[in-house]
């Protein structure tokens, strides 16, 4: 049977992902990543409505404190990503649903296997908080990203160092959202 390019046809009670074409699966991957990010935002909004901004930020930090290394390990296993250098770390980040390539506009500059620069040219979260004029939550979320990147880097290699080269707030809408350097430091 031919691969489904979408699900506009008849209902299939036992449908499986394998029934879809590669292109449809790629679209679904992007959508799942987008929904995962949106879900986090909806939770944050709900909690903000009930308890206020400060508590929403605290809870957001607590949510991501535990989930981060778990996700990386699963994606690495699914894609057989091996190694403990910056190249391996970048491969995982490219495929991580939290940094979905179709949602964020990212430039990956791998200078060598132990050194790379990641530039987020467009970030929907930064755009959202700019629109809401909510700099406080935006900076808290960028700080959360910083901690997350550090955690991910250490997950790959305890000697991997992450430096934020540029962070919001932006001076203009044409500016990049943020830029990060990942570097494997020689063992002291």
């Amino acid at each position, binding site marked *: 049977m031919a691969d489904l390019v979408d699900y506009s046809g008849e209902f299939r009670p036992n449908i499986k992902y394998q029934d879809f074409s590669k292109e449809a699966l790629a679209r679904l991957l992007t959508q799942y990543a987008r929904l995962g990010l949106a879900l986090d935002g909806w939770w944050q909004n709900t909690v903000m409505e009930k308890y206020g901004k400060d508590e929403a930020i605290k809870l957001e930090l607590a949510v991501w404190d535990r989930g981060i290394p778990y996700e990386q390990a699963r994606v690495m296993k699914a894609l057989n990503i091996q190694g403990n250098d910056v190249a391996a770390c970048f491969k995982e980040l490219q495929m991580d649903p*939290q940094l979905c390539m179709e949602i964020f506009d990212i430039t990956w500059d791998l200078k060598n296997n132990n050194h790379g620069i990641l530039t987020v040219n467009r970030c929907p979260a930064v755009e959202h908080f700019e629109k809401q004029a909510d700099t406080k939550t935006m900076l808290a979320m960028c700080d959360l990203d910083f901690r997350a990147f550090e955690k991910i880097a250490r997950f790959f290699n305890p000697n991997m160092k992450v430096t934020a080269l540029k962070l919001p707030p932006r001076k203009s809408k044409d500016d990049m959202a943020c830029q990060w350097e990942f570097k494997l430091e020689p063992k002291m």
Partner: protein
Amino acid sequence: MADLVDYSGAFNPKARYEDFSKDTLVKLLKEYERAYLIVLGEWDRVLKERHSDTAALENNVSMWMTAGPLVEHHLCRTLNINVGNVESFFKAIQMDPGFPLMLFDNEFELVNPNYGLITVKKCTALNAFEREGKGYEIPLCHIVEPSTMINTALYHNPNMIFKPVQLPPREDKGGIACKWEARIVPKSEHPFPYWRMAKRMGTSAPNNPREAGKPWSEKQIQTLWGYLSDDTKGVMRVIARKPEGCLKDDIIRELGINAEEMSYRLGFLYLAIFETPWRQKWAPVRCLVNPWRYKMDREWAQVIKKLSL
């Protein structure tokens, strides 16, 4: 270029999902589903730890009142699912990352495009709650699920009814987890004719974020009451007579209904709250367990009695 079966090779700064084989994309989709569920589970955990089980449940309902229709909207757009009936609702549920086939064993019986049944034969969440033994499945399956699933179904058709046929707790651990019926009815027969797509598609904050901490006023209670059907009002009146803790068995005995019908009727309470300008307010009725009972806000019980609502 041949499809990549994994990403063990060289780093590609321009990598795209389409570079990988179909089997690899399926594997990755399952991980993305898992990541989605982790976000869900972690918020629930953090709310329970920092606040309470009740707070986690209440926030779950509030969050899904916004998120449910939006998730359907994005899934249907991605897969070109033509929205409008029970068939489109079933298709979207099949593809929902929050309801993945790897964790649930679901049976879909679409009798015709406007009528169908879903049986969840295996539910990993229910299995976990049963093992835990605290009865968390009662408020989750009787408060969170009916209200949020009714809301999600309405995205497909504002005249759809999505009703629980069988819900936990179950006596036989090998039995089904739950069963639901979906049907399209004439507008005049729908218990909640107020649902508006435009309102559900927005994610803006409510007018006054400080409302959440305030008790319900008499005027607010009357406004919300106006959105409730006679069936929902009937359940509320019974609870109002014993607001400190009305037993589930007393409610169903007095009304001559089963627990599923009671939970279905109460589910509309949350949809009604979303229609008011104070959607961030806490629901006036809370489900408690051991024994299974309902507690109502004092202000609500007093107003229902005072005004003979």
